[in-house]
């Protein structure tokens, strides 16, 4: 299996990248729609420029929405940053899995690694622990374009939409996190981590500054990691 699926046998880099782009287009459209809501929600707090810059340089929905949620609730920059980084900690594990499939110079390996996002990484897996980096790059291209363009659109249409509360826009936050959680929390240990995280956050909200209940939820991940899988 592993040898038959080696990246070299899957066609030229260009063909593999193109296949990735084609596969990434529906994801790019979905990401475009989500990032419009990011732009709309971010604009009142961050102004017009910072949300666009953030989408260009961070390119991660969960971290951007997470940090924005903390800041909007009145949390500090430090709490927003730590929340965003804990949400992105999975990239560390994904990068470790990806590393053996990346060859060449450090700069080229770095360029591939920077295109890591959940859907592309998962789709680039070709079995036996190997990844097709060109497929991952291809798939990330439409998603990056959709993410940045959607943010631009959201930032500019936001003020024209009117009162965010009367449009129910504040419900975009929980809806977005529920959708991510639904995809993420599969299996006993992840469900336990989710349940524990929710409980910790609810219990602490009345007593500590905004943002900290989210960070404290990380303790549930530590506790759940001791469970048998």
């Amino acid at each position, binding site marked *: 299996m592993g040898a038959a699926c080696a990246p070299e046998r899957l066609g030229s880099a260009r063909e593999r990248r193109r296949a990735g782009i084609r596969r990434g287009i529906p994801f790019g459209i*979905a990401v475009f729609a989500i990032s419009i*809501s990011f732009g709309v929600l971010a604009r009142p*707090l961050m*102004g017009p420029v910072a949300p666009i810059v*953030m989408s260009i340089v*961070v*390119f991660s929905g*969960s*971290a951007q*929405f*997470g940090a924005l*949620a903390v*800041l909007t*609730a009145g949390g*500090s*920059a430090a709490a*927003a*940053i730590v929340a965003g*980084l*804990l*949400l992105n900690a*999975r*990239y*560390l594990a*994904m*990068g*470790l899995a990806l*590393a053996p499939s990346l060859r060449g110079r*450090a700069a080229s*390996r770095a360029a591939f*690694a920077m295109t890591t996002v959940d859907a592309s990484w998962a789709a680039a897996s070709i079995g036996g622990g190997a990844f097709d980096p060109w497929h991952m790059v291809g798939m990330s291209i439409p998603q990056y374009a959709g993410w940045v363009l959607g943010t631009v659109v959201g930032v500019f249409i936001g003020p024209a939409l009117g009162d965010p*509360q009367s*449009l*129910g*826009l*504040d*419900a975009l936050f*929980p*809806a*977005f*996190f*529920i959708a*991510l*959680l*639904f995809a*993420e929390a599969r299996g006993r*240990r992840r469900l336990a*981590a*989710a*349940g*524990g*995280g929710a409980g910790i956050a609810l219990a602490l*909200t*009345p007593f500590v500054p*905004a943002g900290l209940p*989210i960070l404290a*939820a*990380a303790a549930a*991940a530590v506790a759940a*990691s001791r469970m048998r899988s």
Partner: protein
Amino acid sequence: MTAVWVTVAVLALGTAVLRLAGPLALGGRSLSASALNVVELLASALLAALVVVETFGKGRALTLDARVLGAAFAAAALMRRAPMIVVVLGAAAVTAIARLLT
């Protein structure tokens, strides 16, 4: 505003470090099994915390308002495998209608 730009800059750097650490710095080595186990569970724990705080939180108080209906719609739509865009926009619409009616 400074807090916003600090958040953007540090989050961008930190996210790049997380994406690059495996392929560049840790070449060949891996984290301990117990550390990897925690890393794998962090997103679930934090996302669930964000769900409850964004659904029930209002400053330091916990409240029940129209967002609960929006969140319930989102969960129900996901159970029925609705696309992300339906889930998210539907949640906003349900919340907006509930506010209009109350």
